[in-house]
């Protein structure tokens, strides 16, 4: 899929660029202000799922956006992460949760590596459809083998309550802050990775495999690495989904629709853009809810709810299409254009603030 070619060389300003300033401001708000003013609804229904899905989008973006390998099986790796962490917590109760978290990510990475093997020979949609093998196989395994779900009669696993360093994290705001911290940490790592020589190797493989080989990049190893790292990140997202968001795990929660949802996040947010994952997730999580609320508020009295809901599905589909046509490079590109327009206005202000 060599034509997924999005320019990535746009971040070049040294020092505290407006961009870095923006990130710092966002982090300050997310850590400092939101926990004080947010409601339970905001944390549990909007922010936590938004953060988790952003992270999953980020993971897939490494694979699809940066390395050009399309996967339709992302939610399988979320499932692996979620189940791995649950089982570690059940079977090795002495282990600190953060160790579980990382170990679950590593297990997801290992599974990702295995299902990444076809990428050595297949490309494009052939590879994409092949990743569906991971999707269905993993779901089947967790459904079939009772051991993974701790032999729970119903097959739905309830993970033990989240607790970090002996402190129980049960409040919505606590779970939000934990999720936020993990997402920020992993995002920072991914950011380092994509700016490292390895990151360039990923992009080289995406843009032109033969050329990459010529300049000495080990193409096969790079592809597998992309699968592993991507699955690691998605696996971590799965752990958060299970422990911090829904607090229960069932195979059906990680179905094909979830994989498509993550892919939508990446495409709509913008390929090969870290920010894109967050923008895309914001749109995918918040937009349908906003649409539903708006529909209820404006037309609730006129139509019965079934008609309203189905119209929303139509509108959602239409908007996706319109969006893809109007802004195929994703929200990230849109934001870029906006910042470019705004930057001249605010740069003096920032410089003044620093002086």
């Amino acid at each position: 899929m060599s034509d997924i070619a999005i320019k990535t060389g746009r971040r070049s300003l040294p020092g505290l660029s407006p961009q870095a300033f923006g990130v710092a401001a966002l982090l300050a708000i997310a850590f400092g202000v939101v926990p004080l003013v947010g409601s339970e609804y905001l944390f549990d229904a909007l922010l936590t799922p938004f953060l988790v899905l952003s992270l999953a989008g980020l993971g897939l973006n490494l694979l699809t956006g940066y390395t050009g390998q399309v996967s339709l099986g992302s939610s399988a790796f979320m499932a692996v992460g979620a189940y791995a962490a649950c089982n570690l917590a059940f079977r090795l109760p002495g282990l600190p949760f953060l160790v579980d978290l990382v170990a679950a990510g590593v297990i997801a990475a290992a599974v990702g590596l295995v299902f990444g093997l076809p990428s050595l020979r297949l490309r494009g949609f052939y590879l994409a459809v092949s990743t569906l093998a991971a999707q269905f196989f993993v779901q089947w395994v967790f459904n079939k083998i009772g051991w993974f779900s701790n032999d729970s009669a119903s097959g739905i696993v309830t993970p033990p309550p989240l607790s970090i360093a002996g402190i129980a994290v049960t409040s919505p705001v606590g779970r939000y802050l934990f999720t936020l911290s993990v997402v920020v940490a992993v995002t920072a790592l991914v950011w380092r990775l994509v700016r490292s020589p390895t990151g360039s190797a990923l992009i080289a493989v995406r843009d032109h495999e033969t050329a990459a080989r010529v300049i000495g990049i080990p193409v096969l190893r790079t592809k597998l690495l992309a699968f592993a790292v991507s699955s690691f990140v998605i696996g971590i997202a799965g752990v958060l989904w299970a422990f911090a968001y829904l607090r229960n795990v069932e195979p059906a929660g990680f179905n094909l629709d979830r994989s498509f949802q993550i892919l939508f996040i990446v495409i709509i947010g913008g390929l090969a853009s870290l920010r894109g994952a967050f923008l895309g997730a914001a749109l995918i999580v918040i937009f349908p809810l906003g649409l539903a609320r708006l529909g209820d508020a404006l037309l609730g009295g006129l139509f019965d709810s079934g008609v309203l809901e189905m119209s929303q599905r139509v509108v959602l589909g239409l908007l996706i299409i319109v969006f893809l046509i109007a802004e195929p490079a994703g929200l990230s590109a849109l934001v870029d254009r906006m910042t470019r327009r705004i930057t001249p206005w605010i740069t003096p202000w920032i410089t003044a603030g620093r002086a």
Partner: protein
Amino acid sequence: MSLPNILRRAFFGAVLGSLALLPAVAAPADEQYFPLQSYRVGPYAAGGTGFFGGFIDYLNLIDIRDGGVNGVKLTWDECETQYEVERGVECYKRQKSHAGIAAWNPLSVGIAYAMIDDVTADKAPLITINHGRTDSTDGRVFKYVFPLLLNPYSETSGIVNYIAAREGGQDKLKGKKLVVLYHGSPYGKETIPIYQLLAEKYGFSLEQIEVPHPGNEQQSQWLTIRRAKPDYVILRGWGVMNPVALKTAQKVGFPVDHIIGNVWSNSEEDVIPAGDAAKGYTAITTQASGAEYPVLQEIVKTVYGAGKGNLEDKKRIGSVYHNLGIVNGILNVEAVRIAQEKFGHRTLTGDEVRWGFEHLKLDPARVEALGAKGLFHSINVSLANHEGEGRVTFQQWDGAKWKVVSDWIAPDWALLRPIIEKSSLAYAKEHSLPVRDPAVEEATN
């Protein structure tokens, strides 16, 4: 304005719009509110519209005919889940800020599971009629969860008891062969050990065969069944798997009247797509279908007569899901009524309604007084038993409607109780929950 611009505006507009709507409106003092996490789109919309339609129809009946429960008006609003867990959670978080919540009724196992921690913290009852977590039957551990009428284990026992009755007694089960065809999901697998237990107890041989989700292809499973030549096939299906099972059974020549459906394979939606292949198919139910019961007649007259009926297609009045919704409505409303007798004729808290559910005892006489004689049998919920000893009956599809073909049958609760308690106590330990002592609580209440 360029297209991206329009998009951007629309997006921010939608976000702002939704934020503006966030604060909930407090209910006046004399209202009891039912948050409905309904699903009217997506693959399961047919079931959702029927169930929530019936539930709303009954609430409407109480409001219009009686002016509410002892003057306390019933209110509700719907939040669409599309049967997706995250949407269900979002609905929960949104609707929970409403005052005077009576009970939650999501009609989805996944959503119900995701709510158990929250309803326990928020002290509001969670009703999972005919489905849900089997071990939540043990109300000593699951204080706020009610798998009313029928949990999956009781259903299993009810089906085997029915087959025994058809064969002429439980001793006749010996040497018979049963195949269970189950949906490849946690729901489908839940009863595997129970069928094994019953097979050992009654001495029938048993084969359990999985159909992978969604179940639109069952050739190999039915060929295996034909080779096994069982006396009965028990269908533990869901969605499209059911009609396909019936069609494929016909295709391999298995007699349809020896297929027995479980409680999620028992609706019109499960048989109509199979056409003639479904004629003679029998399925378990907790509530009879048909509109001849007085309570349905009143709904038709009072609610639909006033143009407030919830079903768009009036032909669906009295269908399986619609009647399940009505029975669910009766149980919810009666729990509120019973709680009101203790706590006063006012808006109750969720915890008070929970007390009402734990004392929800409707004997056949009371059921008749409610206009539901023959619609369902009775219920007897207690602190320790959140299921309430629901009876089951069996109905046969004649190509156009369901016809009841059995008496009310009682599952073998005593046999199942120890398994349930083992699981619930393990859950209590894992989650460090107290195990309530009925004697102590009844004394202090």
